[in-house]
Each structure stands twice: as C-alpha cells, then as structure tokens.
C-alpha cells in the first residue's frame, strides 16, 4: 500500500477506497484500499492491466457506483453520487446520435437551463477548442471515431468541471490518431489548467500526457507505485522519441508487466475451468 504524501492543496482526495462486487462465484474485491491525491491543474494517469479495477475507480469517482468503503472528497466536500465538479468522458461511443455536434456539446448547458442562443454560442467555443471548427452542424454519424471522442470531451469541458475524469477515451483509436489526439488534449489541459485524471492501459499515452502516473496491481486493484513524470511542458508527441521518455516507460512497464502476466494467467486458468 503506497500512499502519496498528503498535500494540503489537493483538489481530489481518494482515501482508502475499496469495492467488493457480489458475483455468482462469490464476492470479488475489485479495488483494495486505494488512496491518492490530485493537485489542482495536475494531469494524473492511472494505469493497470485489464481487470485491475481501474474502471471501477472511474465509476466510483464519477459517482456512478456507490456502496464502497472509503471516502472521496473534492475540494473538501465528500462526494455522494454524481458531483457537479466532476466531469466524465466515457470509453464507449457516448455522443448522442440524434444531436448535431454543437447540440451535443451544448447538452450540459441545456440541462443547466442556459437559453438556446447563449448555450449554442458557448458550445461552439468548445467545439473549436477541440479542433472541430466547421463541424458544428454535422451529426456524429458523419464523423470518425476520434472526432466523436473529441465531441464527447468538448461536451464534458462545456460543463466546466473542476476535475476531468476520462476512462480510456482513446482505446478504440489507432496509434497515430491517439498520439495526435493526446497532443490536443494536453494542449487544452495546459491552457485551461484543467485538473485531469486519465484511466488508461496505454503506457506511452500515460507518460506522454501525465505529470504523475499511478500504477495499479491486478485484481484486487491496489496502488502499486507512483511515478512522477518530470518531462517539461509544453510537450508534444515528439517527446515520445526522447531518452527520458523511454526511461519512464521502462520503469512503469517493469511494474506493469508483472501485473499483466498475472492477469493473463488468471484468464487462462478460468477458461480452462470453464471447459471442464
């Protein structure tokens, strides 16, 4: 169990969070006593193998999952359910297919009761921010997967969350698109000084974008290691070819590999049991 040193000015505090699921095969502990903090303006990634409980952490922090042990606070306030200060970007396709790009982005403003002209104007600003200027009136079906994820990100940004929570938003994209999109996200994050927590399984992405990487173990998910990424800002995707980058990736992979192989072994033995 590794806890980060307590920071007085931490925006997000996760304290001893554990979550157990009841399954037909008995209780499964997905997350075990995870604690960490995120300072304002920081970009933190959580990385781990499949099955390490990172999506569980995502859902808990976002308030979509309840019934857990421990405490999560935002600016001192304990969260109970969804919190207006936390914005979520999901892994799957989450744009509303029946709304245009700008209408999608305007959604949180519409919920908040902002009148139409104003909210479309504000939304257009965020549409431009993610680089989709000119696509405002298009429908998601006309866009590529990467563009749709940008719409989802813009939509969440439009709600001006204090903390941006993203669950593997680039998982479905190819490597090149990923790198460029990651670039874009980092640019925006730096410009807005947006506190961001990114869940990912992608090493390069984690190192490229974050100030700090939290490595999780395989189930039950615990915090194995914290790696501070001391690469200078502004970064762009060129940074992936630097030595320091490689060094960080190696460091993280060293821990990740162990967990990932445990995951694979587990999956294999489960499949074996099923065929009997």
């Amino acid at each position, binding site marked *: 169990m590794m806890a980060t040193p307590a920071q007085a000015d931490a925006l997000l505090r996760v304290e001893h969070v554990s979550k157990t699921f009841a399954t037909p095969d008995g209780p499964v502990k997905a997350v075990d006593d995870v604690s960490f903090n995120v300072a304002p303006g920081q970009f933190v990634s959580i990385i781990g193998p499949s099955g390490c409980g990172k999506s569980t952490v995502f859902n808990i922090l976002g308030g979509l999952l309840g019934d857990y042990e421990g405490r999560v606070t935002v600016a001192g306030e304990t969260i109970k359910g*969804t919190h207006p200060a936390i914005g979520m970007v999901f892994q799957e396709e*989450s744009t*509303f297919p029946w709304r245009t790009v700008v209408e999608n982005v305007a959604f949180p403003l519409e919920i908040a009761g902002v009148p139409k002209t104003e909210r479309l104007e504000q939304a257009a600003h965020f549409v431009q921010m993610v680089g989709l200027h000119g696509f405002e009136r298009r429908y998601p079906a006309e866009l590529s997967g990467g563009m749709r994820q940008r719409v989802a990100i813009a939509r969440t940004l439009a709600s001006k969350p204090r903390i941006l929570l993203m669950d593997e938003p680039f998982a479905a994209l190819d490597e090149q698109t990923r790198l460029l999109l990651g670039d874009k996200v980092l640019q925006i994050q730096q410009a807005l000084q947006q506190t961001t927590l990114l869940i990912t399984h992608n090493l390069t992405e984690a190192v490229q974008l974050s100030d700090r990487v939290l490595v999780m173990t395989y189930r039950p998910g615990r915090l194995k290691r914290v790696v501070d990424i001391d690469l200078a800002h502004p970064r762009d995707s060129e940074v992936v070819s630097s030595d320091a980058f490689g060094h960080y990736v190696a460091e993280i992979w060293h821990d990740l590999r162990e967990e990932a192989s445990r995951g694979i072994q587990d999956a294999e033995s489960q499949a074996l049991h099923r065929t009997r």
Partner: protein
Amino acid sequence: MTMSAKGFWTSTPGARIFGLLVTLAVLGVVEAAIRADIVNAFIVPLPSQIAAAIPRIVAEENVLYRFWQTTQEIFAASVLLALVGVGLGVLLYSFRTLRLACETWVAALAAAPVVLMYPLFLVIFGRSATTIVMIGFAAGIAPVILKTVEGLAGVRPVLIDVGRSFRVSPAQQFRLILLPAALSSVFVGLRLGLVFAMINIVGVEFLINFGGLGQLINDLAERYDLPGTYAAICFVVAISIVFYVMTGKVERRLRPHQ
C-alpha cells in the same frame, strides 16, 4: 455507358423488368386459355375484361369516396395506436416489474387472432365505423407496445450514464435521452401496427359489408359482377401495396440520424 445484354438483365432493374414481363406473360397465357375455352370464363374473367372494369368501377362506384372512408378509419386507428400503444409501452418500460409481468402477455396478444373478435365488436359497437376502427386498433397495438418497450430498454447504457454524469432530472432523462434514442424503434413499431391495422380494417369492411374499399369488393361479389369483383380486388391490393411502401418511406425519413 455500354452494358452487355446479360449485364443488363441480371442487374436489379433489369431483373425487375424481367419479373414484370413474366407476370404480363402469365396474364397473356391466362387470357389465351380463357378465350380457347380451356379455362371457364365464368370462373375467371378475361384479364382484358378485368382491366377494362377498373375504370368503370372507379367511375361508377364512388371509389374516391370509399377510399376516403377507409382512409378516415385508418387514420382514427393510427391516432389510437400512437397514443395508447406508445403510452402503454412507456408505462411498461417505466415499471420494471410490470414489464416483466406483462411482456409475455403482449407477445401472446401479437400471436392471437384478434380480428376474429369482430362479431363481438359488432355486438358492442354495432355495424359501424367504430367497430372497424376498434378492430384495426386491436390488431395493431401489440407491435406498437412491444417495439416501444424494446426501443426504450435498448438505449445504450453509456448514454444513460452520460445523462447521470451531468445530473439530469428523471424528466430530462426521458425527454432528452430515452425518447430520442428509442424513437427509431417506436417508428418501426408504429409502422407495423399501421400496416396490421390497414389489413384488418379493409378485411373487416369486407366481412361486415360496411365502410369503404372492403365493402366495395363484397358488394360487387354479391352482385356477381365478376370482372368488377376481380378489378376491385386488384385495385385494393394495389392501394395496400402503396400504403405499405409509403409508410415504409415515411418511417425511414422520420427515423433520426442513427
């Protein structure tokens, strides 16, 4: 643009034309067979006679008015289907226990010969347009309810999660997320219900000898106007095909960009 003869005939429009030609050829054979007395002209009138009867029927039998009558009945049934059918569908979706309890009943209703209740409706509503509309409604309601529930239940969970993450109220969730996402399925169900309603409305008009186009066929048959009866049947079949195709087009047009 040159296309080989074979290329043309095997393409879709070419094949369609081929099908049409074959149909016409069959009619030609029938015509010849009747003229040659192979087929009894009292049982099957000459196709040419039937074709000639169509304008006569249209002119003499107030076809336009009858068409309007049937249309009104279909329209009334569709309003009922939209309000009651979609309404019940939403109701069933909203209460999970209710849905699990009743969904099989609605599916059973879809399999039941509902139109056979027309003598019952005759007793309740009399020999009137109400009976016809109610049969149309009863015959079409099951697919509307089922498709509405299916559409609502089939909304991708992530879209609901998006709403939750933005803290929508239940009313907002329904209006802004569930309904638009389910609309596609709702329209499919409404179209199905409408087609079933149309079929049964025309059928019952025929059976109870009341109403518009269905009644026309029954009338002509009872008058032993053979070419007229055949002509009216062809006419009604043509109209129901048009109805089927048109409702299909409207359904596709109304379906949101998904």
